[in-house]
């Protein structure tokens, strides 16, 4: 388990991180969500040791991080960068060797990764000659080449088409299944929702919510129901135990503290005509995010 405890980081007078604590568990993919300037990149740089925190500590399985431990981390910074004039495979191999791999191991791992990321045919092309999407894949390969036990990816999906997203997702899942701790940030909440097991929401340099996706969802689920019928649902307004939140012809969203009252509404709806859809309404990640950050 990778754990941040009480991390504080100031830039001059500005406090970028204030008492940030959360954990990235082994074998799970943790999504790191927050608005621009919320402190995601700073927190990631602290994990990687690129920035030194003013207070707090990062530990891996209870041990403090040393450069030796960190050399087994994989990092994909938000600002993408590889040497433009170096060949793709050569560059990934070079980074692998900087991480301490033997030359032959680095070469083999590079070949395998480029295959998995559908980039094998561009192995000998210079990075600057690649399309943006392919540069992104090369960047991901650069973070994974040394088979890291901790993966920190800053916006790994931005700039990828849907097919590339699936390719990268599959590769990340494979790493998590092997027991790696994977932390990634994204603005694309739908991807985070689909991919991650755990979630950390950060705003203004402070952690606003952290936990498994399902727990968070349950915690933010109010007793809301969605009812969709083919007829008008105007009559819901006259039900005393229900609060109608949205109403648009046959579709309505209401809140009630009494599950029985919701079932009663369903029964009544079925007498007026066919019910197309009925059920408790789970908040989307976007809803939770907006609520938590507010």
């Amino acid at each position: 388990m990778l754990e941040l405890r009480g991390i504080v980081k100031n830039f001059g007078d500005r406090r970028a991180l204030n008492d940030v604590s959360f954990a990235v568990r082994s074998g799970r993919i943790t999504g790191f969500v927050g608005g621009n300037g919320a402190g995601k990149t700073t927190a990631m740089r602290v994990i990687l040791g690129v920035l030194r925190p003013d207070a707090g500590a990062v530990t891996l399985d209870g041990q403090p991080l040393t450069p030796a431990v960190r050399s087994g981390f994989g990092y994909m910074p938000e600002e993408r960068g590889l040497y433009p004039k170096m060949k793709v495979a050569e560059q990934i191999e070079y980074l692998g060797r900087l991480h301490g791999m033997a030359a032959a191991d680095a070469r083999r791992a590079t070949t395998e990764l480029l295959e998995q990321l559908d980039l094998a045919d561009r192995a000998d092309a210079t990075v600057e000659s690649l399309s943006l999407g392919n540069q992104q894949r090369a960047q991901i390969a650069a973070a994974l080449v040394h088979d890291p036990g901790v993966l920190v990816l800053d916006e790994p999906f931005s700039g990828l088409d849907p097919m590339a997203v699936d390719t990268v997702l599959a590769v990340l899942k494979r790493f998590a299944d092997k027991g790696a701790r994977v932390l990634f940030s994204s603005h694309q909440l739908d991807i985070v929702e689909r991919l991650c097991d755990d979630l950390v929401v950060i705003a203004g340099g402070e952690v606003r919510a952290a936990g498994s996706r399902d727990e968070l969802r349950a915690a933010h689920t109010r007793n809301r129901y969605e009812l969709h019928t083919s007829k008008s649902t105007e009559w819901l307004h006259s039900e005393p135990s229900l609060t109608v939140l949205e109403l648009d012809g046959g579709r309505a969203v209401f809140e009630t503290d009494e599950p029985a009252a919701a079932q009663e509404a369903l029964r009544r709806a079925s007498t007026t005509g066919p019910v197309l859809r009925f059920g408790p309404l789970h908040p989307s990640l976007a809803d939770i995010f907006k609520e938590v950050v507010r």
Partner: protein
Amino acid sequence: MTRPLGMVAAVRLVAGREIRMKLRSKAFLIATGVLMLLVVAAVVVGGIAGSSESTTKVAATGAAIEQLRAVPGLEVTKASDAASAEGLVRSGEVEAAVIPDPSTALGLTVVALEAVPGGLVQLLSVSPSVELLEPPTQNPFLAYLAAIGFGIIFFVSAMTFGMTIAQSVVEEKQTRIIEILMSTVPVRALLAGKILGNSALAFGQILAIGGLAAIGMAATRQELLLGDIGPALAWFVVFFLFGFVLLAAIYSATAALVSRQEDVGTATAPATYLVMIPYFLVIFFFDNPLVLGIMSYVPFSAPVGMPMRVFLGSAEWWEPLVSLAVLLVSTALVVLLGARMYSNSLLRTGARVRLREALGSR
């Protein structure tokens, strides 16, 4: 599968990449080729200038034959009489004819076609003996050539590789790969690898030039010149090695202050001045002992100044050693300061980092 890389291994990898990428640059290979050609040309020109004591063909008659044989630098053709000697002159087989003439003070008359053969006349003239109280140890023309040679080689090499380091630093900042590198290896390993890689290239270039010059001199039979310049050349190589590391540290530290290739020139201007000043000083003041004396101890100009003084024979045996010690200490200090500026500025992208902030502690 991975095992943390030791400092030495990391430095070697980084330096290896710097060298590999530079050797792949066509511009660099062409520039090196041109520089080599220039060195060969200079050696050949020097050889021709040095062997100007070519023989003069002269015809002589009678008693003049024996007299001329005693004069070095003349190829004497015997002629039976004055008329046939004149004929040889007219046909162009000889430059001039020398005929005994008791009516002149020297007892000889020189016959030439159109112009007075100055060289021959000088050889036959009687000059008073001259005693110089302080004879120059080196031919002034050669001294000038050596000054230009040391100056240009220092200037070109230091500029080429200094700018290479600066661009490499900014490339890593501009492309942001620096963040991956910083999270992988210590910043000191990065900087050391960069400096060592480029120093090795610069040193290799200097060795190649020095070697080429030595071979060229040997091939054109200028062993005398080689014997004169050899020790100076050796000192130049040693001084250059450490002098370049000093400059490299300044180049990398100043380049780290900016984030765009367009700003490299402005940021590294101080380093560029430090390279240019010794170059101009040595060319304009190569015969000024005071200026050379100061230059030979100031760390930035010592790589040019000290070898020049060794060549001129104006340096005591211990002087290069003292100057080298001064250079070593300054190099160590500048490398430490440079490393601090470098690591403090790497993550600061956007506006230029202020010097005070770069030098402050994190």
